[in-house]
């Protein structure tokens, strides 16, 4: 790069760091949300109809309704 190395390499280095940073932030947020969704869907059935079914089945088993607390 001759005498321009001090300008060329920082340009490529910064581009690599910023673009890698974008990928890392995006993937971390996606993984975190996927995990949270999996966890929450386990705790609370997603659809109202599912919650009603859960409540009905728990009532019929004498357990006192859905546990949404």
């Amino acid at each position, binding site marked *: 790069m*001759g005498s321009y190395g001090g300008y*060329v390499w920082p*340009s490529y280095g*910064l581009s690599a760091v910023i673009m890698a*940073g*974008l990928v890392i932030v995006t993937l971390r947020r996606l993984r975190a949300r996927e995990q949270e969704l999996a966890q929450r869907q386990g705790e609370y059935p997603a659809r109202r109809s599912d919650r009603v079914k859960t409540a009905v089945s728990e009532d019929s088993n004498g357990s006192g309704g859905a546990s949404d607390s």
Partner: protein
Amino acid sequence: MILDRFANPARFLRLANAILPWCVGATTIMLAAGLYLGLFVAPPDYQQGDSVRIMYVHVPAAWMAMFVYTNIAIASAVSLIWRHPLADLAANASAPIGAAFTFLALVTGSLWGKPMWGTWWVWDARLTSVLILFFLYLGHMAITSAFDNPARGAKAAAVLALVGFVNVPIIKFSVDWWNTLHQPASVFRMGGPSIHPDMLWPLLAMGLGYTLFYVVLLLLRIKSELIGARLRALDSLRQDAA
């Protein structure tokens, strides 16, 4: 209408999951090819020497800065007019990517400007309008998250994006309309590219690589935004039940 087909979140997710691996592969290949051609094959410029290699990361970043903002403006118009559910998510997902590319265009341009112009920065029309674009991106991100109700934030950000779009043609034609230090267009211009093919091909390879990189990130971020919307729906379900 084809837009309607992909505005359905479930259909979008199926399509996104199917094309993501191909996009990741194509991005890797194009960026690797572009870097190899730009750093090792393309000749140094007869006047600029090896500093011309900054062009292979600066120009694609500047193209993406304008391309991503144009996409945000289109998504904003679609959101305001047709209220397609994915349009706001696409705009929100694009803004940080566009801001990052704009930042890169400004800094790499500055790193080229110092040895070639003798200054890191000059308030000429091209540089100033790109700096304004960077602030528009930051404003879009700030407004999106400034409201408790995400729909109101998205609507305000969409209006900003549409108003700010006037800046995109100003950036493109600033070098023609005003007497600027920044050189005029050498690729997308009337009469075809004026740049030598030995430098044009690495530049186009990097440009395609950056575009594919944006597509990959956009798909991942829209997926993330869709899950976020689902989590908010679960929250409201929990509040209803409480």
